[in-house]
């Protein structure tokens, strides 16, 4: 079901300006394993191959910035313009789910860049639709929204701890606790769009240690993919979904960028 892509030579190629506008966005907590009572900084990062630039807290971009633990949902607080963009206090032991849903941002792309970006992100249906409409040579106007999550563990891990559905437009949900599996084991994920499984979407997983060695898979009819995550360290799992922009959006396309980060410890 999954296949390993070969190493894409070196990260220098990944930094090619040709991939200029197809940037991932993820949450990079100051620690994935806080003590109970510890304050965790929640850094937002935008970039490629887990090489990211800081995104300071921008209230005009935040639609939802929250965390959920066993006691419920709370807002992620922070100072406007600051990096880390938010902070949370881990009050009780357990799995904490952090979510950031942005408001849409607008971008205009040249036809070459947009076509390349569709290819990179596996958005074949959109590319086919553009081809049918004879728009492959046309500039593209897009509004994109970020749907980023991270999983943080305080205290001991258990199978009973689960990722939570936050209700994001596009959402990746880990169907097992990544902190409760040994490395080199399969981890199932489910991708939902508007709370319904999204089939046929390209999902990519990459580790911070070797981000160019990407794992990729298409979601099945239930929106599920499974990855075998051998590498210890931080992981980013991501997916992009694009639809024709709704009327009044002042763009032809609307995209949603889901991401999920967590850290795997060395295999026992």
């Amino acid at each position, binding site marked *: 079901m999954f296949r390993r892509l070969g190493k894409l030579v070196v990260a220098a190629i990944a930094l090619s300006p040709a991939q200029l506008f197809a940037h991932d966005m993820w949450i990079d907590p100051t620690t994935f394993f806080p003590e109970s009572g510890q304050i965790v900084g929640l850094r937002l990062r935008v970039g490629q191959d887990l090489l990211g630039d800081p995104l300071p807290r*921008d209230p005009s*971009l935040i639609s939802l910035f929250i965390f959920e633990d066993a006691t419920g949902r709370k807002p992620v607080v922070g100072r406007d313009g600051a*990096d880390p963009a938010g902070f949370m206090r881990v009050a009780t032991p357990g799995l904490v789910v952090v979510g950031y849903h942005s408001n849409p941002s607008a971008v205009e792309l040249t036809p070459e860049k947009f076509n390349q970006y569709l290819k990179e992100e596996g958005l074949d249906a959109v590319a086919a639709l553009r081809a049918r409409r004879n728009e492959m040579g046309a500039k593209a106007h897009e509004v994109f929204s970020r749907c980023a999550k991270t999983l943080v563990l305080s205290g001991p891990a258990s199978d009973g701890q689960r990722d939570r559905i936050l209700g994001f437009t596009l959402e990746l949900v880990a169907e097992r606790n990544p902190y409760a599996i040994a490395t080199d084991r399969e981890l199932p994920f489910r991708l939902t769009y508007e709370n319904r499984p999204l089939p046929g979407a390209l999902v990519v997983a990459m580790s911070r240690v070797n981000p160019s060695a990407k794992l990729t898979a298409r979601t099945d009819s239930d929106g599920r993919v499974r990855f075998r995550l051998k590498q210890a360290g931080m992981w980013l799992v991501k997916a992009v979904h694009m639809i024709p922009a709704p009327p009044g959006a002042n763009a032809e396309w609307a995209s949603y960028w889901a991401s999920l980060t967590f850290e795997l410890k060395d295999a026992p």
Partner: protein
Amino acid sequence: MRVPRRGLSCCLVVGAASGFAALMLICGSVARAHEIGTTRVSVLLQADRYQIEIATDATALLEKLEASAGRPPSPYKGSARSEAWLATFDEIFRRRLKVAFDGSDVHPRIEYSVSPQTDTTSPPLATVRLSGGIPRGARDFTWTYSWTFASYALTVRSDRSETPLTEWLEGGQTSKPFLLSGAAPPIDRIVAAWRYFTLGFTHIVPNGLDHVLFVLGIFLLSGRARAVLWQVSAFTVAHSITLGLSMYNLIAVSPSFVEPLIAISIAYVAIENIFLSEVRSWRVVLVFAFGLLHGMGFAGALKELGLPRSDFLTALLTFNVGVEAGQLTVIAAAFLLVGMRYGTRDWYRRRIVVPASLLIAFTALYWTVQRLPF
């Protein structure tokens, strides 16, 4: 005007966080929200040299450089040694930026520095300074920077332009050409000319009572147009000379010396009006000399207001014209209210000139004492 490099750097570092909200507002006013990072680029274009400062997250920059170089992660992140580590990537760093004049790349001198973390949550800031000479005859400047994935602000300042230009760029995007000629659009020059004309006028009416009294003193001695014209012309030529010389920093006289002398000149003209009944040739020479003093006073006021570098001469000339317009307005008002109706009456000198001159003289003497530095 030379902007100290350290000051520029300070502005970047200190202003980065606090200025972010304002930058977002600016950005938000022209487009929908963008993902704005922490990178800022500031360019200073001088007559023959350029200085560029890139302020960016040190850790993020190092990670990208290390990945591009295929090197392992730095053991120095966040420490004082990260500065030297950063400098070792000079050749790679240069590959993803472009400083160009008229589309041709130049090879800047680059210095790297990393400021330490101020607390455990704030990331260390890297400041990269680029500098070099501007090719002779170059007409425009363009900038490309590909070491950031987020949007960033490029601010360009020039010796020839008062207002810095800010352009929002994505990483890898080339800026619009910045014209080195600094030629302001005609509308800007007209606006500047009107602004400084207005400032010159209001420096006389209503703000310059001392200058108003001096002009009234000139008017009162003789209501005849020829006499007034000679004195006003001498005064205008004189104050234009010292205003220009002062503004070009060719002369500099302390206001503590000039201001009491201006008051004395007003008192002198007023007292002379009491004892003279017609304009003598030496009176014109004296008014010329007093005009030199008043010009230095105008220069002091104009320096406080500030002159735009791009339209220095326009502003200087229009300020002077505004001053003239103010003086002529005073004379016209005095003529219409008093001179036209009563100037030929027998009692004009006795009932108007002498009492008014006495009032002016007492006021000016009071100012003289008030303005003395001791």
